[in-house]
């Protein structure tokens, strides 16, 4: 009941208060959109880490493949943008299948293998000139349409769109986590033998998480392409599409559904609005220190830490 209320209030704030109060400030809206973009990838990354037990350094590949797939479908084949974005997710999911041999690898070896895959996709985007425009990239990628009277190409519209995408993904993540699949996945990390012996196809389940995570990342990558209307391989496959989401997820709490999104908002907005103002060059350093501090103070991330504090508060209030 209380939980429902929190969700309801958060939704009203997110869809109502934010556009009403900040809608006229283009710069701030752009930052929030960028933060949610990173948050979406962070959520997808954390789903793979938390449920699949896999640490990926290659999510930039899925982001880039999603962006290119969608852009090419719209520019060359005149697909409607929103449909092409879904196809971008599918493209990234298909690309993730190519990384599956790496699933046999454990721990850091998987992380490294998928990092290598990321570079392969970037090189492909540079070399497949006729399809992708090569290193020069693609210009004038069409933006979002108007849907139900809302111009999604406006800042407020794009914000509502990425917010909706992230919420849908969080809902899907929660659904998976609560299912018996989610239970099996949670148990798999520490008790792989125990799960296999009762019939859990652990490698298949991990693979499924990889595909879902790649799909989500691809959709967010596609969103980004149509929002900034431009793509080149250096940008679409930039390692920051891997690094920032990882930082956000770890900062916010990668084993929770909302932690990564919260982490992205806090980390990105504080970095851009506060630290960048205070020290235009080198503000990333502060960000690094912040992340380091978080790992030491609350290794499970911000959200679990807040949970602990609010419980303490409640028990103090009750005493």
């Amino acid at each position, binding site marked *: 009941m209380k939980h429902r209320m929190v969700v309801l209030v958060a939704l009203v704030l997110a869809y109502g208060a934010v556009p009403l109060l900040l809608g006229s400030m283009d710069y701030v809206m752009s930052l929030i959109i960028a933060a949610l973009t990173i948050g979406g990838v962070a959520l997808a990354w954390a789903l793979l880490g938390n449920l699949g037990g896999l640490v990926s350094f290659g999510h930039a590949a899925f982001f880039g493949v999603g962006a290119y797939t969608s852009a090419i479908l719209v520019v060359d084949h005149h697909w409607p943008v929103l449909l092409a974005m879904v196809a971008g997710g599918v493209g990234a999911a298909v690309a993730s299948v190519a990384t599956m041999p790496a699933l046999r690898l454990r721990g850091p070896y998987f992380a490294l293998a998928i990092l290598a895959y990321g570079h392969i996709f970037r090189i492909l985007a540079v070399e497949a000139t006729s399809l992708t425009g090569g290193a020069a990239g693609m210009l004038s990628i069409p933006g979002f349409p108007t849907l139900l009277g809302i111009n999604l190409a406006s800042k407020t519209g794009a914000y509502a769109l990425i917010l909706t995408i992230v919420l849908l993904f969080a809902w899907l993540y929660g659904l998976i986590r609560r299912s018996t699949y989610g239970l099996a996945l949670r*148990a798999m990390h520490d008790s792989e033998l*125990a799960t296999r*012996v009762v*019939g*859990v196809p652990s490698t298949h389940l991990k693979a499924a998480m990889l595909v879902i995570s790649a799909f989500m990342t691809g959709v967010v990558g596609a969103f980004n392409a149509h929002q900034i209307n431009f793509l080149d391989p250096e940008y679409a496959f930039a390692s920051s599409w891997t690094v920032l989401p990882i930082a956000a997820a770890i900062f916010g709490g990668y084993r929770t559904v909302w932690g990564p999104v919260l982490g992205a908002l806090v980390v990105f907005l504080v970095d851009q609005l506060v630290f960048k103002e205070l020290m235009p060059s080198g503000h990333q350093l502060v960000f690094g220190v912040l992340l380091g501090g978080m790992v030491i103070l609350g290794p499970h991330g911000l959200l679990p830490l807040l949970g602990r504090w609010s419980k303490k508060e409640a028990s103090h209030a009750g005493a």
Partner: protein
Amino acid sequence: MLELDAITMRFGGLTALHAMSLSVAEGETLGLVGPNGAGKTTLFNVISGVYAPSGGTIRFGGQDVGALPQWKRARVGIGRTFQIPQPMRELTVRENLRVAQRFGAGKEDPAALDEILDLLGLAHKQHADAATSLALTEQKALEVGKALAVRPRLLMLDEVLGGLEMATKRTFARTLETVRARFGLTMVIIEHDIETIKALCPRVVVLNFGQLIADGTPEAVFNDPQVIRSYTGDTPA
């Protein structure tokens, strides 16, 4: 129901199972005994697919299951427990069984889980954390519960009664008998206590240095001089 033919299992230079053949009939309860290191657990690991044997064939219900991955062995009806209990960490007792049932038996059936929890005396602990809040007997009961939740036709118990006090052991042994009758199971039981074996198993086989050295009724087997020698530590010629 289960036919092992010339199963060999090598770990590097060590041969844990030596061209071992054994068949277990439907509905039978077989005792598997032998000194520590004889290869009993290894045999379970080979049957349940934890290890691929270095040689030999495994037929279960007429089907060659040797090539099936571990998770598929559960689905064809091979259930087992581990000598060292392996609860699924982070999950409750009931969630452990739910996962076993969903993946091993193919579909969820809460009523069937209730029955298993009741039979094993775990109902009151069903929402407790499986890895941290169970006493030894309860951990062992959970091992059996997980194996039962996959709806096995063959249930292999690896020293599930080991380390329990005598009285607890008797009660647990009776529970196993009830479970066997209720689910119409074929069972293979690894157990050191001769009285328990006599009470549960009409047939016993003895494993020593990876080879079967005796097969028969408990009375015949436990009076076999070769078996007695194996327990007093003689190596085979």
